[in-house]
């Protein structure tokens, strides 16, 4: 940021001496900038914005028995199905429940782990960072799949707990919601850790030390000094965890019997080829998620603000 300021400052100072030349430079620089950004903007418009308008359009067409939808028609029947179907209500509710549980766990554990990375140094810090970066760079298919031999009734965890005498009979972690939560948590946790860590990394440890010198206990210095400052990181962590977990596909499908919206939508699209209904369901989910994400952000912001006032 500072560098760009000096850049414009330089143009400005030349400008006072030679107004015509600077006007020209100013104009050509913003045109150059636009030209450079044009491919990116065109790409986002064509591959991201336009497709969502197509989705919106398809969501208000009539379903068809021999096509994926009836082109050119207008109908709200798909939305009526989404609003009236008890099955879809259950599916949406389950998706949000899974999303909420995973988000809370992800933010809490992420906060703790990011703090541990921030406080460590040398080889320990590198190893801790590596332990979040490596899963993040591994396909979620593998991350989900690895939980099967670990969590199944004949799996590693049950074996260990049984032989330690902590259990009398194996627990069915998979297929069950517990397995889906564990799998999904493993998918989003690395992002949560890094989002919080990148905010922590810009913080000055001296402030925390000052609070401790003034008599704050360690947990208290964390809650009152560190926490309010990392609220922006926590918001990013919560939003990413929530958006991805509400839309979770692989973990619930492979590790539980519960059907999330994503699993059902894939069935509608690929299995039943009911495009209108899949589109309407996606639109409804996007709206619901937008509302919840806004609420989460507002609540967390207020939380940060309250601490600032205290």
């Amino acid at each position, binding site marked *: 940021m500072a560098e760009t300021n000096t850049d414009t400052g330089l143009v400005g100072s030349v400008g006072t001496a030679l107004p015509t030349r600077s006007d020209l430079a100013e104009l050509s*620089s913003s045109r150059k900038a636009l030209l450079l*950004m044009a491919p990116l903007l065109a790409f986002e418009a064509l591959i991201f914005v336009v497709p969502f308008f197509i989705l919106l359009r398809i969501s208000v067409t009539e379903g068809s028995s021999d096509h994926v939808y009836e082109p050119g028609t207008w109908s709200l029947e798909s939305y009526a199905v989404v609003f009236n179907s008890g099955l879809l209500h259950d599916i949406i509710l389950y998706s949000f429940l899974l999303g909420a549980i995973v988000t809370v766990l992800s933010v809490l554990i992420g906060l703790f782990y990011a703090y541990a990375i921030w406080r460590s140094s040398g080889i320990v810090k590198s190893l801790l960072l590596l332990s979040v*970066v490596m899963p993040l760079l591994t*396909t979620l298919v593998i991350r989900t799949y690895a939980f099967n*031999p670990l969590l199944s009734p004949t799996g590693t965890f049950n074996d260990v707990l049984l032989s330690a005498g902590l259990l009398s009979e194996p627990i069915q972690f998979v297929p069950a919601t517990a397995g889906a939560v564990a799998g999904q948590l493993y998918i989003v946790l*690395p992002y949560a850790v890094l989002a919080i860590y990148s905010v922590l990394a810009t913080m000055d440890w001296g402030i925390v030390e000052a609070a401790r010198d003034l008599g704050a206990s360690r947990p208290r210095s964390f809650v009152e000094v560190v926490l309010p400052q990392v609220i922006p990181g926590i918001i990013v962590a919560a939003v990413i965890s929530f*958006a*991805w977990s509400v839309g979770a596909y692989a973990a619930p499908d*492979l590790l539980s019997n519960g059907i999330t919206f994503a699993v059902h939508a894939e069935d509608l699209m690929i299995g039943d080829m009911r495009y209108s209904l899949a589109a309407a369901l996606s639109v409804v989910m996007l709206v619901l998620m937008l509302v919840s994400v806004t609420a989460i952000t507002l609540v967390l912001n207020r939380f940060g603000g309250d601490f600032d006032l205290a």
Partner: protein
Amino acid sequence: MTSTLHRETLETLAFRAGYLALFALLVLPLLVVVVTSFAASGRLAFPPESYSLVWYGEFFGDLRWLTAFENSIIVGVGTAILATVLGVLGAFGQEIDDDSRIGSIVGPLVLLPLLIPPVILGITLLMYFSELGIRGSYVTLVLAHTLWATPLVYFVMRSVFSRFDWQQLDAAADLGAGPIQSFVHVVLPNVKQGVFVGGLLAFIISLQEFVMALFLSTASTETIPVLAWTEIRQALDPMVSVVSTFLILFSLVALALAVLATNLEWVSRQLS
């Protein structure tokens, strides 16, 4: 005083135990994958009863896996090239003119696809590409993956450009260099590590992406994660572990290269 000290020692111990346990839990699933790839039997168990290289032999004899591997590389390279060009140019443009109105929407717009559940993106793009009649081609996969890879390249480059000394560019212009000349000879040498890391991350994102690929690929364009998914839904045998081990190895090498070009701390912070 002694009780405070005692409590602080306990706190430190609990803190260490906490993050070491988490470390183990984070590494364990990857370890399971790598170890089970050396299993001798067909049953997926951790730890395996006996070890062998049987499943590696199977992998290199299996045409389906080799084709999927090729597909993944094609899509990954395509994504890396497209995302790098778009991201580098976009970030450079915004750096030249920081306070333009259009510039201020670029950041959020580029970031937004990452916050949409991949299933919704997959559904949306499948409908769109079907309308356009280009369903199932490599192009669709590259375009979809670029949607996710571009934000990484873009923000890596923003961070790199913000540390670049822009007066050098003015100096080059004063010395008579044209815009392209000064970009190639002045800007690029200073930011090439950032471009390299950005492209590498874009490749890895594409290599590992699964949900959009599931929607957009067909039997002839399916990538490694998609084939792995179909396989594990049918049978849990160590073959997927072999493939996964290769993918993990790929990421490890890419990460090592990125870290060599910059450092782990910086790379990690770019990923969030």
